[in-house]
């Protein structure tokens, strides 16, 4: 590069030398002749020798031009090349017409520059796509507010959170976009305090949402605040789950405590002296026995449920005749059937073969039949029917018992949910039966439906997909 500059300096010096020489020559000629001639002859001399002067000037101009045009040509090409670099239409081997060694030096430098710029641009572009990819695909909403309080950047997730399209957000002042006084106040607070802020916000529109919001100041190298980055994380579902879990723990404790309290109460009374009376002892011991059965049942149901819920139950699928299984189950339920005096009918093909986990299907049917028997008055009819279609089996348990009203229908599959707490307790229910059924059906990728009318009866239907 330095070489090149020197070379041009030399060319310009040469032009100057020529210029000075021509002036000196003219001057010399003038002096030489003027000394010997009269003043009046000076004009004559000028007329006579002016051509020498003109010739010198012309030769100077021509010579200079030849030298300059080469340089100008190179400058033209450099500017064209810069234009090309800016347009990014050429990436290498610029300045092909460079001929002498200095031109080639410049050309080389230009080429390097072009390459360098190209590389930088590629890195920037690459980073930009990467950033864009990250922003668009992150599940958290993001918005960037600059010093003028206007939003300059948002991602797609925020559209869904705030219920506005990107176009409606970018360029707006933050309060206009968020419509959330607390969020906007916090953005302002972040501008003021220049520190990170984390807080929970509740959105009211379009749906209620709980957000974990992070506000962070964006600072320049000189520590000047340039903007605030807001990241919103929708934790509504998380909070809901937390609540379910809390409720569950509370429920379990309550359910376990009830039988335990009565066991402990009767045991203490016995110890206090009641054991001396045979009849009372027998009565109390009976209660203790039933209550511990109940406790056992709850614990067993809970264990079943947690096993199913932990999602690692293995399905031991095997083909079996449904009717045979139902017959077997009716034998296990015989005692209850006689107590409640219900009539049970089976409506299914003798040959109906099902491929599923037999123990799970047993548990499902036992629970459904148990309910059908428990929640019907004496002398009711229960129908267990099954049919098969192209791609699923359908089994239903129908009773003409007390039925379930509409508001409770959505909730009976919840753990511990019972329509009538007192009544089911006396029937020995835990409130977990249907929760277990639902989970088992889902483990088979099936569906369960319930249809019921108060005073008319209830029908539970399960659909299990057939193996392909």
């Amino acid at each position, binding site marked *: 590069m330095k070489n090149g500059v020197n070379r041009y300096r030399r060319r310009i010096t040469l032009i100057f030398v020529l210029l000075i020489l021509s002036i000196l020559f003219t001057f010399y000629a003038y002096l030489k002749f003027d000394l010997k001639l009269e003043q009046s002859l000076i004009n004559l001399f000028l007329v006579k020798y002016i051509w020498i002067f003109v010739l010198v000037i012309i030769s100077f101009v021509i010579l200079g031009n030849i030298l300059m045009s080469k340089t100008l040509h190179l400058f033209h090409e450099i500017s064209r090349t810069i234009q090309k670099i800016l347009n990014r239409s050429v990436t290498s081997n610029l300045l092909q017409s460079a001929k002498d060694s200095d031109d080639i030096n410049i050309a080389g430098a230009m080429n390097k520059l072009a390459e360098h710029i190209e590389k930088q641009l590629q890195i920037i572009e690459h980073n930009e796509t990467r950033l864009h990819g990250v922003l668009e695909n992150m599940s958290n909403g993001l918005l960037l507010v600059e010093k003028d309080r206007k939003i300059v950047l948002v991602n797609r997730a925020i559209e869904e959170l705030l219920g506005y399209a990107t176009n409606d957000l970018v360029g707006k002042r933050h309060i*206009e976009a968020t*419509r959330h*006084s607390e969020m906007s106040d916090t953005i302002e607070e972040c501008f003021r305090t220049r520190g990170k802020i984390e807080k929970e916000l509740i959105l*009211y*529109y379009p749906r209620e949402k709980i957000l974990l919001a992070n506000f962070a100041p964006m600072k320049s190298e000189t520590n000047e605040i340039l903007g605030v980055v807001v990241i919103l994380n929708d934790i509504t579902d998380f909070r809901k789950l937390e609540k379910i879990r809390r409720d569950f723990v509370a429920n379990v404790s309550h359910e376990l405590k009830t039988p335990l309290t009565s066991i402990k109460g009767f045991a203490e009374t016995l110890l206090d002296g009641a054991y001396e009376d045979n009849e009372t002892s027998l009565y109390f011991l009976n209660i203790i026995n039933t209550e511990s059965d109940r406790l056992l049942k709850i614990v067993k149901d809970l264990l079943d449920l947690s096993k199913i819920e932990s999602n690692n139950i293995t399905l031991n699928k095997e083909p079996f005749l449904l009717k045979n299984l139902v017959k077997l189950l009716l034998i296990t339920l015989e005692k209850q059937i006689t107590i409640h005096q219900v009539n049970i009918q089976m409506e299914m093909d003798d040959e109906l073969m099902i491929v599923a986990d037999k123990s799970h299907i047993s548990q499902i049917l036992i629970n459904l039949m148990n309910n059908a028997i428990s929640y019907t008055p004496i002398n009711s009819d229960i129908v267990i029917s099954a049919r098969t279609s192209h791609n699923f089996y359908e089994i239903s348990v129908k009773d003409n018992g007390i039925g379930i009203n509409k508001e409770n229908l959505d909730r009976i599959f919840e753990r511990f949910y019972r329509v009538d707490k007192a009544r089911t307790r006396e029937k020995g229910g835990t409130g977990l039966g249907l929760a277990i059924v639902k989970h088992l059906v889902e483990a088979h990728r099936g569906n369960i439906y319930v249809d019921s009318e108060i005073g008319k009866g209830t029908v539970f239907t399960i659909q299990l997909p057939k193996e392909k």
Partner: protein
Amino acid sequence: MLNNRHTFDSQLQELKEKLLKMSGLTEKSLHDSVESLKLLNVEKAEQVIELDNDVDQLEIEIDEYAVKLIATQQPVAKDLRKILTAIKISSDLERIADLSVNIARVTRRIQGQKLVKPLIDIPKMTEVSQKMLRISIDSYINEDISLAKQLESMDDIIDHTYKEILNELIEIMRQDKEAINQSQQLAFVARYLERVADHITNIGESVIYLVTGERKELND
């Protein structure tokens, strides 16, 4: 002169932002009041009642600021309309927040009772009014008359639902004497929501006035 215009513009912007802040709070009280009723959550109801102070405070602030602007800048035409509209909208917002407080008071009054019927239509009505509130403020921000005009048909939906709820509650009262008190309270809530929608429609009218300079009734 130019500089003066510049400050005036930023003052108008500040007025607008105060109003937007107020609308955010109003939206919150409307939502929370019905939510408190749905869940019979008295704590939430108390929060709504508490929040009303902030809304009232903002209304006063907006009024004072608006008066100051009129006095010092002596605006004309659209600038004047901007300020007048802000005063009008803030008073409608304040009324909406008041009605939300009324709803929250119903929650307080029926605490400890079970709902005579699960709330379905009232939340539905609230949903429509919340949407209307959004649209009205959107139309204000963007000075978009076509948005404001959408409010008219939505207000019709509200009126219709209101009548349905009333009929249903009357039926419940007829069947169940015990439910009379609570049904009355719920009827009040429906009435409050119907009034809320009216105030929102007023906001729409204010926006139309702001943009065109003409008064137009959206609900008749």
